[in-house]
């Protein structure tokens, strides 16, 4: 998935778009100096790709203009797919701005560039896979996201289905897998190229134990995909608690009720949270942004010894987390608030 795009002219960032967490400012400075050195070396390739920790950095350089286009993607994105996007983007950009750069009066119009870049995001096929055994609610969730009528009767999915979902202006491809064992030979193929994998469970112990199989599949086929367990059917009395599921599975777990149509934004937020999407991408992501801002605030208050304020913020975040389906974090923060309160006496 495309996480960031930078255009750098004469060592200045003239355009930047963030879709998800990528290089922060200090990291960018560090990386840029090294890339510049490589890109402007005498016989260097014009277009290249590097793995840089959890990211893949791909660039194309216009030496005569001292211009670099840099894409930050996940490690799962293949350079052969990124390459044509880089070339096209350079061409499109230069068609527009070449003369301006030459004449030294460059004015970037984001209204023009943003849609082009959004399209690159789409062309790189950001993929979310929903896996899990039969009857746990994968198709219901897919339908929920697509805002289709929610099936109240279980109709097994044959092989798989692809839908698109939109987060803000961005398109994601959602792959819904057939959960029956007789299709398991297909799973390996279907899961490839996933940026995020949602392991759907019905929150029963039996299903959870069985579902650990999918960890092997994910590790083998898409080791760099982001993985979360969805504890579906939390409305049923026999459902295990989210924090217990998280402990059992050792993976981030979100609570969910797929048959509730009001949960559509919740699922979108879960996906965005998992991918560390930038909050500006969609107004729906506001709670995530709020949570992160409050976390920083709580951290500062705690460091300054303002414990009353910290308690208040912790409880605020705890409520947001419940809304986000992050029950275990909600409980953690409530416990922390209680602990501080007891200290205050």
């Amino acid at each position, binding site marked *: 998935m495309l996480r960031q795009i930078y255009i750098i002219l004469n060592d200045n960032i003239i355009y930047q778009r963030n879709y998800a967490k990528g290089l922060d400012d200090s990291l960018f400075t560090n990386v840029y100096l*090294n890339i510049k050195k490589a890109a402007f070396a005498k016989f260097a390739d014009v277009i290249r790709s590097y793995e840089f920790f959890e990211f893949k950095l791909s660039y194309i350089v216009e030496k005569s203009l001292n211009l670099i286009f840099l894409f930050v993607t996940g490690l799962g994105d293949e350079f052969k797919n990124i390459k044509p996007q880089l070339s096209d983007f350079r061409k499109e950009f230069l068609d527009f701005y070449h003369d301006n750069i030459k004449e030294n009066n460059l004015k970037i119009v984001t209204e023009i560039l943003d849609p082009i870049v959004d399209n690159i995001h789409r062309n790189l096929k950001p993929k979310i896979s929903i896996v899990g055994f039969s009857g746990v609610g994968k198709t219901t969730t897919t339908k929920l996201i697509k805002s289709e009528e929610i099936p109240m009767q279980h109709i097994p999915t044959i092989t798989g289905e692809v839908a698109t979902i939109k987060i803000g202006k961005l398109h994601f491809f959602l792959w819904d897998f057939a959960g029956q064992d007789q299709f398991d030979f297909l799973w390996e193929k279907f899961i490839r190229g996933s940026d995020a994998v949602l392991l759907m469970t019905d929150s029963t112990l039996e299903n959870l134990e069985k579902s650990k199989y999918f960890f092997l599949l994910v590790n083998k086929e898409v080791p760099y995909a982001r993985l979360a367990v969805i504890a579906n059917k939390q409305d049923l009395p026999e459902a295990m608690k989210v924090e217990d599921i998280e402990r059992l599975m050792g993976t981030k777990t979100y609570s969910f009720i797929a048959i509730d149509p009001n949960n559509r934004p919740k699922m979108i937020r879960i996906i965005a949270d998992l991918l560390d999407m930038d909050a500006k991408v969609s107004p729906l992501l506001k709670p995530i942004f709020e949570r992160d801002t409050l976390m920083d605030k709580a951290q500062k208050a705690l460091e300054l010894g303002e414990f009353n304020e910290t308690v208040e913020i912790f409880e605020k975040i705890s409520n947001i987390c419940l809304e986000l389906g992050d029950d275990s974090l909600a409980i953690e923060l409530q416990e922390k608030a209680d602990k501080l309160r007891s200290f205050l006496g």
Partner: protein
Amino acid sequence: MITKRVALVGKPEVGKTTIKKVIFEGEDPNELVLFPLEATIGIKYSVHEFMDMKISLLDTPGQSLPILLQDEEKQIASFENTGAIIYIFDYPTWITDSQDIIDDIQTLYKINKKHDFGSKIVLFLHKVDLLIDKKIGSRLDLIGKQINKQLDLPEDFPIYFTSLHPNLIYTIYNAISDTFSNFSEDSSKLKEIIKKTIKHSSKTICFVSNREGNLIIQSSSPDFDTTTLYYLYEKIYQFSKTPEQPLSNNKFINAGSKLLCMIIEDIGKFHPSFKNLLFFSETLKENDLNEFINEIEKELGQIYN
């Protein structure tokens, strides 16, 4: 000054030489990540000063690891008189090919026993920056336990999670300094004192950092929640980076799933190898921790004054 030999062992391209270059030769990790080094050919020796001793470091070529693990003569040449054998493996290989790594470590264990080298085997799980997980503390803890379980050997090996990522660079410094400090007499003495002091406490951990801000001692009560460790390392590193920030108000620290009471004391006056003594506890209050510090300082005073 005593000299200790330490051997770096691991498969090709896991980053043995890169670690050495970043830590001891001050090279830029970003550059080394973008422009990888050539394979090491033949064993490379280098000597480095650390605390009250000299460390003689052996960098073994990954390509010849299979030979090293079979050829007794080479083993004796490489591992005889080594204080520690550091086996470095990376996270991507661990998840795709864990059995191969388990085999390597088990063989190393057997070699160490057979020749009676008496080396400490230490594991570095490198490139943990590739483990993107919202619950990273629990994940690392889980992986650590899994590794020792799968190794199925009479003793558990210390496992350090390391990375050269600019935001995680302290992990590799901590891993190296903690491993090396085990050979230092000064640090061993202090470690004993700390162990004795916190022996009967619950859910409490103590660290000692050196002037560079790296951890040289870590000692905890057995019931300490190790999933918070990763966050503690990060916080300690941040403190060491911003010494101008007053620590007096920092009574509590947010470490992953837990809120811990914390206290810091500068013990540099006793020995130049030490800097901060840090306590974190889930159950104990500030006063209790202060008492620990008093006790430890009293004993240090007797040794060094």
